[in-house]
């Protein structure tokens, strides 16, 4: 039988967090355990009375809880971070979103994690708590490989500081069906546009195309400081295919993933890169 600890305060959690496997929403860990993963002791991080609030809005950024259900975060955001909301809208199912946390999605370090690319394009910084106190780490540094993270023993991700978008942002994923689909590829984007249509502050991040979620810097450089002309479209699509290192797996071939990520970038540029377009934040599977 498993031993389950349910600390109610951060101080209590700090005392015991190194003595077992941390569990948040459990929507991934319990599936792994059913498939044979053995854990002696689980320590719940999702029941803290003094944990961070779902959302805390500041002038330039929004602090969001890593420990509360994704559905609650999205409701509290009410559209303030369009790419995060778009990713959450196509994240698993409502039942899963009512338990799953962003902290869990980050710590599990799936290459296909849907909540991660929107945080990467925002240059979000995680607050990590642990037995030694707290520290900060950019979200992009949290995953070190498929299923591996850089957290030390007893550490948990507590909250995320997400700079507000200055311009537009969005998220798209391709999955086998509308709900409950692991991304075949996903792409988040963030950029600003001046009155001449020149794009700046361009950030792109993609999932399921490399061992971890990655930033697509070659493609960013092709777009930065340019208008979304046909030539820029062509060069940036070619560049993003070079940014990624996809594999063949049960969901798609590497070839398909290269084509698809190029298509997602092209669609985002066509729909959201001229001054008169809407705000972006388009989701969908």
């Amino acid at each position, binding site marked *: 039988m*498993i031993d389950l600890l349910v600390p109610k305060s951060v101080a209590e959690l700090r005392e015991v967090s190194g003595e077992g496997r941390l569990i948040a*929403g459990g929507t991934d860990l319990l*599936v792994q355990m059913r498939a044979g993963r053995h854990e002696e002791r689980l320590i719940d991080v*999702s*029941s803290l009375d003094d944990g961070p609030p779902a959302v805390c809005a500041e002038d330039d950024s929004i602090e969001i809880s890593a420990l509360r259900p994704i559905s609650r975060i999205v409701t509290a955001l009410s559209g303030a971070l369009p790419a995060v909301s778009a990713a959450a809208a196509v994240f698993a*199912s*409502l*039942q899963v979103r009512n338990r799953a946390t962003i902290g869990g999605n980050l710590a599990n370090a799936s290459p296909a994690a849907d909540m991660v690319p929107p945080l990467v394009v925002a240059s979000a910084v995680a607050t990590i708590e642990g037995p030694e106190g707290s520290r900060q780490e950019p979200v992009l540094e949290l995953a070190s490989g498929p299923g591996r993270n850089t957290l030390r023993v007893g550490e948990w991700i507590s909250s995320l500081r997400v700079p507000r978008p200055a311009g537009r942002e969005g998220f798209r994923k391709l999955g086998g069906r509308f*709900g409950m689909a692991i991304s075949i590829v996903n792409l988040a984007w963030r950029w600003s546009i001046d009155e001449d249509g020149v794009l700046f502050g361009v950030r792109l991040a993609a999932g399921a195309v490399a061992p971890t979620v990655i930033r697509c810097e070659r493609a960013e450089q092709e777009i930065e400081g340019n208008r979304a002309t046909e030539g820029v479209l062509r060069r940036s699509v070619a560049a993003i295919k070079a940014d990624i290192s996809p594999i063949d797996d049960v969901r798609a071939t590497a070839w398909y993933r290269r084509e698809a990520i190029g298509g997602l970038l092209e669609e985002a540029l066509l729909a959201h890169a001229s001054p008169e377009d809407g705000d972006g934040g388009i989701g969908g599977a």
Partner: protein
Amino acid sequence: MIVNGKTVEPTDLSGRLLDFIRDTLGLTGTKEGCGMGECGACTVLVDGEPVCSCLVLTGQVKDASITSIEGLAKQELHKAQRSVIAAHAAQCGYCTPGVVLSLAAMLAKGANLTEDQVRGVLVGNLCRCTGFGDIFEAAREAALP
């Protein structure tokens, strides 16, 4: 923990909420389908929100109020149940308790929903008989303006 309005005292806190509801409380209207959070047959409401009870440890929700399918009807059947009956939206019936609870949670939010939003609510409930046409019809009847 409160289940269907009654206070209960779970003993095995590290077990699944699904097993506590079915085996300890004997409320077998909650079904186990996949056991992996994919199918939604084990859906119950935790503080009004639908979750897969196969992916929750009892100790994580020991201070919560839980509604299983047995606790939904009060004096008369819930609107979600009446809509499912009216649309003949059950075949083998195994997914039905989960579908009904998802619809009940949707109705509790009180919004007039679009077709896409209704489908979004039911994304986590699989019907192995593939009777989705009638299930969506029930959902529309319950939810659309």
